[in-house]
């Protein structure tokens, strides 16, 4: 059963929380603007980190895992078929295609271009037959690729496996580094932004000291006194995060045509992707939590009831 008196008290707390913004608009706006600037930096960093992660996930689509075999030019079709079936049975292999030794030689000639003449003196084709394996989308992370390569290498008849592991692992290291730096920056900004909200709420607390005294005098409980400040902090954080998100979206829309090419080296041929609804909601939630945390910090020393 709903306690109607408690609901009415909550409504009074909400009005009181909004009064902070109305009665001290400059302090409130400055606090929101400062927090928004901090969240903009954090949001930008999160956007870059998310895009780098995205590149790592997408790069697997272009990546083929190549299994060189002991099958020569004279291999019988059923030998090729049998090895292909064993490879196809491995978990993570989406497709595979056999490249015959003569086809491999043709490719090599094509790759060498004008220098292909060096191959003319060869009496025998030394290239082995190979299988090109397309990896399933969910198995394209570096660790998964390594595990699949090991499994392929263990299949009898496979002599060597290649998949550009150096590039994938190097890129993964960069992404990890960016994420670690991002976490450090995140912690730093969370502390700074929390302190900003705490200062603003403390100002509110001083400005409303008389009101708090009178509220207590006429029987206000601790939560009734504190709740408006929590709401004020959460409102500041939420508004700041929304402002940061809108600003970031505007910068993205304006900057992408100019910076798209310049960022190509970082994220490849893919265009920078903006936050989806989940990430955007996450940033706003972070702002709200920061605001609440700041209010909690500033109200920590507030005594109850006496």
């Amino acid at each position, binding site marked *: 059963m709903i306690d109607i008196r408690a609901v*009415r008290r909550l409504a009074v707390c909400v009005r009181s929380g909004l009064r902070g913004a109305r009665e001290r608009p400059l302090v409130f706006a400055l606090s929101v603007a400062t927090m928004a600037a901090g969240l903009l930096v954090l949001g930008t960093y999160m956007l870059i980190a998310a895009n780098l992660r995205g590149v790592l996930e997408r790069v697997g689509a272009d990546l083929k895992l190549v299994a060189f075999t002991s099958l020569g030019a004279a291999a019988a079709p059923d030998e090729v078929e049998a090895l292909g079936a064993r490879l196809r049975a491995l978990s993570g292999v989406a497709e595979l295609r056999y490249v015959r030794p003569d086809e491999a030689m043709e490719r090599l000639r094509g790759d060498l271009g004008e220098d292909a003449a060096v191959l003319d003196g060869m009496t025998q084709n030394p290239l082995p037959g190979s299988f090109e394996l397309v990896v399933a989308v969910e198995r394209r992370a570096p660790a998964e690729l390594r595990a699949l390569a090991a499994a392929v290498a263990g299949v009898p008849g496979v002599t060597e496996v290649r998949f550009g592991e150096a590039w994938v692992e190097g890129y993964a290291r960069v992404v990890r580094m960016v994420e670690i730096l991002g976490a450090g920056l995140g912690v730093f900004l969370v502390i700074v932004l929390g302190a900003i909200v705490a200062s603003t709420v403390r100002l509110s607390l001083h400005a409303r000291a008389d009101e708090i005294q*009178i509220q207590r*005098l*006429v*029987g206000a409980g*601790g939560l009734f006194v504190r709740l408006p400040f929590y709401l004020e902090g959460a409102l500041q954080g939420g508004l700041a995060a929304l402002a940061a998100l809108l600003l970031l979206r505007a910068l993205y829309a304006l900057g992408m045509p100019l910076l798209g090419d310049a960022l190509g080296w970082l994220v490849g041929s893919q265009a920078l992707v903006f936050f989806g609804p989940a990430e955007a909601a996450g940033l706003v939630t972070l702002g709200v939590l920061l605001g609440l945390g700041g209010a909690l910090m500033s109200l920590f020393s507030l005594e109850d*009831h*006496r």
Partner: protein
Amino acid sequence: MIQMYHVDLRYTGGTYGLRDISLTLERGEFVFLTGSSGAGKTSLLRLLFGAEQPSAGQILVSGRNITRMKAAQVPALRRQIGVIFQDFKLLPERTVFENVAIALEIAGTAKREIRTRVWSLLKRLGLGHRIDHRPRTLSGGEQQRVAIARALVNDPPLLLADEPTGNLDPGLALDIMDIIADAHARGTTVVVATHDPTLLERYRHRRIVLDAGRLVADRAPEPTVWAARSIGATRS
């Protein structure tokens, strides 16, 4: 209504605000707490509405032992007590209506009921035409009437007043005392701390005299019966 048993209030540093106070106030009584400045009148009132905790002794208000009360239970006690101060303690940015309504809002009263009760009380106290004014535009007497309205709007069974006329001219002081006397006539138990001899002369009520934190006399209401009792007799 109020029982105090051997109550001490000792501050850090060892000085006593109150020492070995024992007294009983009946429901519906009107009592003056009197004594010179620093005698302990304000300290005693602060103990009664839970703003201070005694260092020793027991205090019962409406049968509840407030010395054993948890901090979270104090607000409920305060909603049963109206308190008036010498400096009015009004919010300057709020209107007269809002200053009075705050007590009902905290109690979770419905908006319509708040409007009705605040309006009728302010009208009764002669402030009907000041309802939308800010406190700074009011005279001292009007401000104190607003503070009284805030203290009475919840119909508390107990009204505590700490030098309620201390900042007012003698004429206004009597007006304020008449309002408090009216609340008493409606059944409210009233404790007024004052050292104003004019008030004590005009309003013949029981007087509890404090000196340096000790209860030195407890005098009955009738002027002819000035039966000063010893502290020992009060305890029994």
